[in-house]
């Protein structure tokens, strides 16, 4: 009985060691480094798009020192055939612009429900100091809206895959409907 348990334990130990031996090691990488693990839209592409578009907007006529226009953001439309988290593109662009301090953002369509809910909570609740609650009707309307799209052209043969991405962003003046700024950037990735 003792021998059987002993043998079982040794066998388990061997199996465990083999599993550990076969598993791949984990290491930290540079989050801003060039990533070429696969041909799909990746972190390098996301950083490139966000940086290029933000910097382009910074030197446009839209942003004049001190005017800090109010902008609302709409998600970048994914018009490619692959799944791309376009919210990540939108968020990165907004964060970069907010960090530069040259524009201000108002609540976008997606966050509106939460904003209204918080206003209602403060107004309706009897737990808040009436002098500190946020009044309704004081939210500022955006002067501009930012929108964009990402498209791709994919070519594939038996041993080569070529993907071309084109990201286009536009800023429209809401009151007049004038296109105030637009730019595009492209990325080409080849797997062979």
């Amino acid at each position: 009985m003792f021998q059987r348990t002993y043998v079982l334990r040794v066998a388990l130990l061997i199996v465990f060691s083999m599993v550990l031996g076969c598993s791949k090691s984990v290491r930290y990488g540079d989050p801003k480094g060039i990533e070429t693990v696969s041909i799909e839209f990746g972190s390098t592409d996301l950083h490139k798009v966000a940086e290029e578009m933000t910097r382009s907007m910074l030197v446009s006529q839209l942003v004049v020192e001190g005017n800090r226009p109010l902008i609302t953001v709409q998600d970048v439309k994914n018009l490619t055939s692959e799944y791309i988290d376009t919210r990540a593109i939108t968020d990165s662009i907004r964060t970069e612009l907010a960090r530069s301090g040259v524009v201000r953002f108002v609540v976008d369509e997606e966050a509106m429900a939460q904003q209204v809910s918080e206003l209602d909570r403060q107004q309706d609740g009897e737990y808040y100091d009436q002098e500190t609650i946020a009044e309704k009707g004081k939210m500022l309307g955006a002067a501009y809206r930012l929108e964009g799209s990402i498209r791709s052209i994919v070519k594939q043969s038996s041993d080569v895959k070529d993907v071309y991405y084109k990201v286009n962003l536009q800023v429209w003046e809401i009151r007049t409907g004038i296109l105030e700024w637009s730019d595009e950037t492209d990325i080409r990735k080849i797997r062979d």
Partner: protein
Amino acid sequence: MRSWFKQLRYLSALGLLLFLVSCSFMGKKNGCPNGDVVFVGDLGDIDIVKVSCIPKDGILRVLVEIKNDDDKERSLAYRFDWFDEEGVVLGREEAWKPVYLYPKEVKTIRGTAPNWLAADTKFLIKE
């Protein structure tokens, strides 16, 4: 009369001081004082032809002319670091961005500062 001259002398001195101060600030804004280029690792036949800093509407813009003297195409990565007037790094580190060069090609890489505080830059390039 003498007091009027004295006042004029003070005003002239103040004007000259203001002029010199504004000139010194303008000097820092025009172009990048250092505009360093850093090769991360051995890049072989890759040369930097020219680095130009052009401030426009208060935002520092940089043009880096890079030449591939190699007979093969090269796939490299670059980024800019940005510094304020005191030499402190601005914001977070930029991401490395890919750049593709044909044999003997000269390419101009454009960089734009992340905000109005940038007064200097460093261009980093690697394989």
